[in-house]
């Protein structure tokens, strides 16, 4: 079937089998291999991309169902010469070892910080209606959909926390 996808600001017209997931469309048909395939069952978060600015698992999304929603992948978040503040913090805090989960971690954390800014509570929030403190427990809970096989979690949390503080200072 004919599918039109808007990815990182560019519209692509593709002919795809309806079974094609957004993940496979990105990697195999658009050559955007920054988004990774880990488990392909929504359990690891390596495929996390932003759909209309919200984080989702691309492996459990059919490409044909998201034709009207802009997709942002890791390729659309900063460049090697112009990193986003979060990407810079991942470098500064050594927030990875092998790096395979990193694009998913960064996409997920980018959207997660917006969720906190919007006041969304989490399972770790003592109060459902109060302001959210960007604590270690909050970050760990909110990032639980992104696994890191190298267990770089400690540095990932530090990187996100620093980026959140910068964001708070800028606001």
């Amino acid at each position, binding site marked *: *079937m004919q599918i039109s996808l808007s990815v990182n600001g560019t519209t692509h017209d593709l002919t795809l*089998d*309806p*079974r094609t*997931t957004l993940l496979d469309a990105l990697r195999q048909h658009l050559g955007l291999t920054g988004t990774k395939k880990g488990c*392909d*069952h*929504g359990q690891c*978060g390596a495929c*996390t991309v932003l*759909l209309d600015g*919200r*984080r*989702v*698992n691309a492996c*459990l*999304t*059919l490409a*044909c*169902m998201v034709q009207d929603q802009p997709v942002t992948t890791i390729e659309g978040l900063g460049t090697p010469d112009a990193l986003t503040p979060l990407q810079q913090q991942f470098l500064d805090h050594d927030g990875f070892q092998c790096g395979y989960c990193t694009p998913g971690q960064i996409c*997920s954390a980018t*959207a*997660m910080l917006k*969720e906190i800014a*919007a*006041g*969304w*509570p*989490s*399972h770790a*929030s003592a109060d*459902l*209606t109060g302001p959210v403190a960007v604590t270690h427990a909050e970050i*760990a*809970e*909110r*990032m*639980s*959909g*992104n696994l890191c096989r190298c267990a770089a979690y400690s540095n990932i949390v530090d990187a996100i926390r620093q980026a959140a503080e910068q964001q708070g200072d800028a606001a």
Partner: protein
Amino acid sequence: MKPFTYHRAQTLTDRPDGATIIAGGTNLLDLMKHEVMTPEALLDITALDLNRLEAQGEGLRIGALVRNSDLAADPVIRRDYPLLSRALLAGASGQLRNMATTGGNLMQRTRCPYFYDRRMPCNKREPGSGCAAIGGINRNHAILGTSPACIATYSGDMAVALRALDAEVEIDGPAPRRVPLSEFHRLPGDTPDVETALRPDEIITAVLLPAPIGGQQLYRKVRDRASYAFALVSVAAIIGMENNRIAHAALAFGGVAAKPWRDAGAEALLIGQPPSDALFEQAADLILKPAKGYGGNDFKIPLLRRTLIATLRDATGMEATA
């Protein structure tokens, strides 16, 4: 994944016969990848106008397409139905909650590993083939309402809160109707493949919440890791106190049956009484009287008992003891 034809519905009545509805897709696509579900046609309903959350009478009408994350974060839900926010936030991951819908969450299938494994017998997947979980690895399985045909659990969290909140499911079809959440999910009996009251020609359009009832609302979920895991057991509790006595009690349990479990007798036992460990133990005894372990899940019986008592202590404001 088996091939299917794809249709995008523009109206509620735009429904090809036999098409399987897809919305968030978080469970259905996973099952299609495992070829446990092999629909010949998919009906994408995400363009339908079912994503509003609005007042209805003294309660709320939650459109079937409202995403779990939006529902959990909604200011009215957080203020008036905190139990629902808590249950939603205890489930899945941030990514999945952004995708999963209210209607789809009710329709999720069991996570019994034998249901997912097509090489193994499963009466839910293939009626008449047997149940590999009975006598097999059944650590995550049900202790209440089981049958010789099936011991799978309903694994969601949202519906457990909805059961305690006395929600209803709004259904469209040849004869539009409302089904109390208590009657929406089915116990396995002889037909574990029939999981809900929804008929093939029907569609969930909304979940209806009655007027807010206040009280202490707690959702306590016990699982193998601190986040992003299904419940071993969970307890949804709404407790209203008056003059140091329990004036209102609604208790629902997850991870223990094929549907969110509730026991009116135990609630009646609590009402009018001052809180005490002895009272909570009596309630637990009553709830667990029909419980049956299958070996691997025997631990769920004492686990549910302790989780209930701990939750009731918190909800009634009893001082914690060592």
